[in-house]
């Protein structure tokens, strides 16, 4: 029997054994804590333990399981809340009470619950890995499609009748070429650090629609894309993630609270079960999986939580769904890597982070993508990772390395947050590499003018940025009228368009069509005003019309379901200019 030789926080060593393999799951100590083998050499094996090792003694037993750390994938995942190694927290609470104690032995998914299964294959059919063989309603909105595990193919020799089954019942039996029979159940295991395979990677072509104007219009994210949300504390990373989790048009949300606050997870639990998804009239929890490894829970499990989350996402992707993962925050995950690395006495690279930080980040973000799975036409995993830069300094290693692997960067800005401009996404520092890829989508689904208008708005903001340098030095009064207009229009864009109120019933989610119409009104006013100024009308007279302030408040004044009122608003702008300035500019 192998025994513990030394213990240093979550790192445990075993001497003189060759029984373990890399990344194998092991049970450590009398309490059978969950651990993973992370290093092997000729005289010692290093294990990271996913639970608190207080009280563990050298000499306690260590047993291998013969399999890598894996997620159990099957019905019962959605609506659930797990810790970093997929143990349901509600079951732990039922067993342990208010606090989490180590060595909790609970099964990942409910093994007694019966699912209403409909078979998709019959005896005699040939099946291959990844093919859907049965389906059952998992929640009000998600149909769970069980797939033949990868690596198994052959002929179906037994198929159960449609009916109620638990995840432990055999649904079909497959006989492969060598004559071996495999009993296949509703649930299967998959090692969390191995990406699940797919047939083909498809080009990115559709945005993930979030209802947030600064994202959808200015810096869109693709279905199957990657985005990073860096920001110092108090800039609204978590708020942004919550908004996306609530409103984006993914089928399933995997929300990973990695090393963050316990109260935030409670908030998500409470809020999401109370919110009704307008698309299907069901609570948002019907499409959400929560993985909570809060900052005071064991650090090694924080590292695992990210992999558990993305494995679950890939599993639903393979059923043909579009998944969005919110990882809040990847910096805590990187710090967990650093902490373990420090305890292993590895040579540190930048700021104590291990040299393999970039490759781990890349491996994580590369698991995003828009693919053709084996059992469905298309599916995607979109990864949105929050980054918490130390000292709010974007030049630190995690932010910089993340930037290399994501195509969308929403930089949260302290000064915007201080001015309570939310979402505090800075339009000068942020970017999206997807904008060009979506021109066609916007043209087909919203309006052909969408992309050009977006560009105009961006350039107005850039121009304002330049002008503000001057204003800071000499004040706005000395600027010529057309530049004053640029500043005023940019103000309307900032306050009336980019700023969005998450607590307002309409403004919290704005459909693309309304975003476009708002943009159109702002630019129409700008054009009218510019023409008027060029024909000699004073800027102050134009401001006196009050139209700019009308546009600032249109997001509240015009409800989401009455887009026709924008036509009236445009007519109003037209009319005001005609009535007041007609004599002067001759229009």
């Amino acid at each position, binding site marked *: 029997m192998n025994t513990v030789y030394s213990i240093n926080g979550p790192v445990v060593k075993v001497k003189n054994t060759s029984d373990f393999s890399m990344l194998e799951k092991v049970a450590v100590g009398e309490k059978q804590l969950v651990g993973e083998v992370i290093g092997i050499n000729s005289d010692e094996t290093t294990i990271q333990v996913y639970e608190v090792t207080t009280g563990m003694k050298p*000499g306690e037993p260590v047993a291998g399981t013969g399999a890598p750390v894996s997620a159990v994938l099957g019905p019962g995942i959605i609506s659930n809340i797990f810790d970093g190694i997929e143990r349901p927290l509600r079951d732990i609470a039922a067993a*342990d009470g208010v606090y989490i104690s180590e060595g909790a032995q609970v099964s990942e998914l409910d093994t007694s619950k019966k699912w209403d299964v409909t078979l998709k294959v019959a005896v005699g059919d040939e099946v291959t890995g990844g093919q859907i063989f049965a389906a059952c309603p998992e929640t009000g909105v998600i149909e769970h499609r069980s797939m033949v595990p990868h690596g198994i193919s052959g002929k179906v020799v037994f198929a159960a009748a449609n009916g109620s089954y638990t995840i432990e019942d055999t649904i079909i039996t497959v006989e492969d070429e060598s004559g071996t029979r495999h009993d296949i159940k509703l649930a299967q295991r998959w090692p969390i650090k191995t990406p699940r395979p797919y047939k083909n990677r498809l080009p990115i072509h559709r945005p993930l629609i979030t209802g947030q104007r600064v994202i959808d219009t200015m810096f869109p994210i693709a279905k199957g894309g990657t985005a990073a949300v860096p920001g110092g504390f108090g800039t609204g990373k978590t708020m942004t993630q919550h908004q996306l989790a609530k409103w984006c048009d993914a089928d399933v949300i995997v929300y990973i609270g990695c090393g963050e*606050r316990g109260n935030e997870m409670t908030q998500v639990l409470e809020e999401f079960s109370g919110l009704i998804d307008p698309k299907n009239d069901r609570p948002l929890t019907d499409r959400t999986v929560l993985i909570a490894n*809060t900052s005071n829970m064991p650090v090694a499990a924080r590292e695992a939580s990210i992999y558990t989350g993305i494995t679950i996402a890939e599993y639903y992707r393979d059923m043909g769904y579009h998944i969005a993962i919110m990882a809040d925050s990847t910096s805590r995950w990187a710090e967990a890597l650093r902490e373990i690395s*420090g305890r292993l006495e590895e040579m540190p690279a930048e700021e*104590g982070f291990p040299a393999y930080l970039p490759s781990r980040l890349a491996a994580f973000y590369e698991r995003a993508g828009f693919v053709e799975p084996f059992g469905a036409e298309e599916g995607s995993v979109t990864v949105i990772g929050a980054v918490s830069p130390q000292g709010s300094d974007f030049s630190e290693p995690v932010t910089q390395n993340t930037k290399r692997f994501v195509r969308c960067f929403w930089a949260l800005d302290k000064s915007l947050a201080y001015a309570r401009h939310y979402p505090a996404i800075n339009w000068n520092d942020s970017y999206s590499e997807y904008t060009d890829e979506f021109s066609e989508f916007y043209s087909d689904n919203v309006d052909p003018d969408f992309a050009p208008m977006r560009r105009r708005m961006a350039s107005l903001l850039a121009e304002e940025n330049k002008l503000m340098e001057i204003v800071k030095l000499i*004040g706005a009064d000395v600027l010529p009228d057309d530049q004053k207009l640029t500043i005023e229009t940019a103000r309307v864009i900032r306050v009336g368009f980019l700023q969005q109120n998450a607590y307002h019933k309409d403004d919290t989610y704005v459909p693309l069509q309304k975003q476009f119409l708002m943009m159109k009104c702002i630019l129409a006013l700008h054009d009218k005003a510019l023409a008027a100024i060029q024909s000699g009308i004073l800027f102050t007279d134009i401001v006196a019309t009050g139209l700019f302030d009308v546009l600032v408040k249109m997001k509240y004044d015009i409800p989401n379901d009455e887009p026709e009122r924008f036509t009236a608003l445009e007519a109003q702008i037209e009319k005001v200019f005609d009535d007041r300035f007609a004599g002067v500019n001759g229009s």
Partner: protein
Amino acid sequence: MRLYNGLKSISGSLIAVDNVEGIGYDEVADIRLADGSLRRGRVVEVDKGRAILQVFEGTAGLSLENTRTRFTGRPMEIPLAEELLGRVFDGAGRPIDGLGEIHAEKYGDINGRPLNPVMRSYPRNYINTGISSIDALMTLIRGQKLPVFSGSGLSHNKLAVQIVRQAKIADEDGADFGVVFAAMGVKNDVADYFRRSFEESGVLERVVMFLNLSDDPIIERILTPKCALTAAEYLAFEKNMHILVILTDMTSYGEALREFSSSKGEIPARKGYPGYLYSDLASMYERAGVVEGSIGSVTQIPILTMPNDDITHPIPDLTGYITEGQIVLDRELEQKGIYPPVSVLPSLSRLMKDGIGEGYTRADHSDCANQLFAAYAKVGDARSLASVIGEDELSPTDKAYLRFGELFEKYFLNQYFDENRSIDQTLDLGWTLLSALPRTALDRVNEKLLDEKYHPEKLDELLRTSPQ
């Protein structure tokens, strides 16, 4: 055999004992010196046959030969009972008020255990501190952790005392109020100031004090907040009390942790602090909260002094990432004579949005707060412009902002140490001051509310009746 003679090595606060068996990670040991005196240590690393211990009182006077180490087989624990209230302990939880040992109802492991997120209740009940800046703009919620970011010489201690004095309301649900006060590396007279203030405001018998003063052993400092939080959790969740925990000064705690880490030869991360500083701080801050099945709560107000007033220093930085907001104090305001010198813009309470408004404070609270924040943000722009082109050259709007800024600081932020403002007074004052701005500048509020709240004549009256 749990008793061992002699040590293998001594380095800093760490000692190594060889040829040991069955020693657990994190267990506590008694160490008897040659002269008969007793110290305590904790196992921080075990290899087969060797245990590394951290000695709380330091290793001065220890020798390799004549030291006897007895392992207790248990992690660090403190006795818990209701009679903790009113008592004073040292940083490692030993009574120092001469009133004898605690008759323990039970013993609590000071490391605590993580709260299961599904067993937390989301905190919603606000605590009226009677301080306008906090109540209106960064409302404190029961079960929240809201640190005060301060600097050396600023009035954070005074502010903490005022919060304790004014927040001492018994709840309608009958839960009692109590304070757990943990001092880490603070000066003797600061600890004394707190003790006297608690006494004067008549809460002393509801206060548990854990004092690790600046001349006490630095290693004990690492235990102090953990002892305090263990006591707080017990009183809150088992005795159904509303406990306000004041931890001061977290910077000293962080420095003690750094010293300990470097003496163990660990690889440092930023500014020499250990890589696990975030996890370590989180393991304490996350012990705030409200749990299902108990009417009590643990609310934390950690106080930390930012070295060189630098908010990006690792201790305030990591703290800000864990806590639910922060109250930032500002030297410039302090120099202007504003008390409490709360710097409004970087301050924030993350939980306030769900604990204010109708049914909690007042329906117009969030509008008032948002507009005050937005308006005060513009004050900064106007001021920096004025410093370049001179006040006279400013546009009328910018001039109005300058005036609003002055009035806001003088009348809203500024208040007396014994002035306890109700939430109605605070919000009304906020609206009155906003009336110093042109009505069109109040763009965060709808017209209907403005009709009701925008009254420049009230401002004139305020200036007439209380020219501060």
